[in-house]
């Protein structure tokens, strides 16, 4: 990209790349969520004379949101782990600092152990938050296998 006259800092480039990539995955999740809402909901709402946009935001999305929660939690954890890849373009994040510290002070299992635990704690945190949200919105059903694996393409 710099050859086209666009120079981005590593952090901006990382945010853009991850954002676009996971935006695409997120779109799939939203699509699956919206498809899982029975057509009748929309038709009934339209038949009652509600505006299409109103139907989208107040009838369909609230229902789809609950369904989309578990896959979005998975996606978020996947994203969290993917941020480590940005270390390769020298974004000063956890993995980059970990390898920097270990090359400065000698390789030590504790340095890697600490940052692994930090990542683990963050992903647990995400699941804790979304788990509470799921309970709050009244679904505690287990993930179906289909939801568990996001389609890679």
């Amino acid at each position, binding site marked *: 990209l710099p*050859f086209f006259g666009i120079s981005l800092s590593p952090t901006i480039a990382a945010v853009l790349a991850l954002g676009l990539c996971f935006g695409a995955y997120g779109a799939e999740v939203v699509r699956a969520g919206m498809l899982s809402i029975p057509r009748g909901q929309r038709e009934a709402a339209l038949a009652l004379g509600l505006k299409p946009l109103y139907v989208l935001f107040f009838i369909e999305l609230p229902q789809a949101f609950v369904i989309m929660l578990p896959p979005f939690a998975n996606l978020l954890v996947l994203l969290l782990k993917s941020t480590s*890849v940005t270390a390769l373009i020298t974004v000063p994040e956890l993995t980059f600092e*970990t390898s920097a510290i270990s090359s400065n002070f000698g390789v030590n299992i504790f340095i890697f152990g600490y940052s*692994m635990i930090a990542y683990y704690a963050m992903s647990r945190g995400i699941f804790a938050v979304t788990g509470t949200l799921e309970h709050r919105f009244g679904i505690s059903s287990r993930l179906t296998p289909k939801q*568990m694996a996001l389609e*890679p393409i």
Partner: protein
Amino acid sequence: MTFNFGFAWHILPMLAKAAEITVFVTVVSFALSLVGGLLIWWLRTSKIALVSRVTSGFSDFIRGTPLLLQVFLIYYVGPRYGLVLSPIQTGLIALGIHYSCYMSEVYRSAFGAVNRGQQEAARALGLSPWRTFQKVILPQMYPVVVPIAGSYLVYMFKDTPILSAITVRELMQVASQIGSTNFRYMEPITIVGILFLAMSLLAAWASRVIERKIAVP
């Protein structure tokens, strides 16, 4: 900066060679993760509470931490404890373990999808536990496992560039080397992108074909 087809043609053989390594790593570590996933799943369902606790904790931990960090851990910390591995071996083991933990979840959900009565009936008919699993349960697990395993195959494939961080000479590594020696990043990166897209589409298509083959009518 335009796309130079002559240069692209010139570097194609180098990239093709690197693609071989990428495919090799993907296939071998996929096989490892299929077997490893089965092992982890088996340990998780162990009757001994300690074993199942430790295994599920391990599996959760691996799935909660990034692959890149695990690769670094094995590659840089391993030698301190006498574990000296070549970059490619490290890559195979790291990818294999990482996706074993994912596959174990797949097996678990597939097993859950098989009706419990099936197992009870087979046992009541006098089949041994192993025969029950092998002849009754496993064939019914395939339809659930295959599509998800197929998508994990594509994920693994897309995770191989991470191994370029520990100097495995796979596609991404070779592409950026070509880029830095010739000051032309446009062609190598584009070709790598196209190759990755083509190969993941191929894998997805293959998985869909197998899925249709084994579908229970």
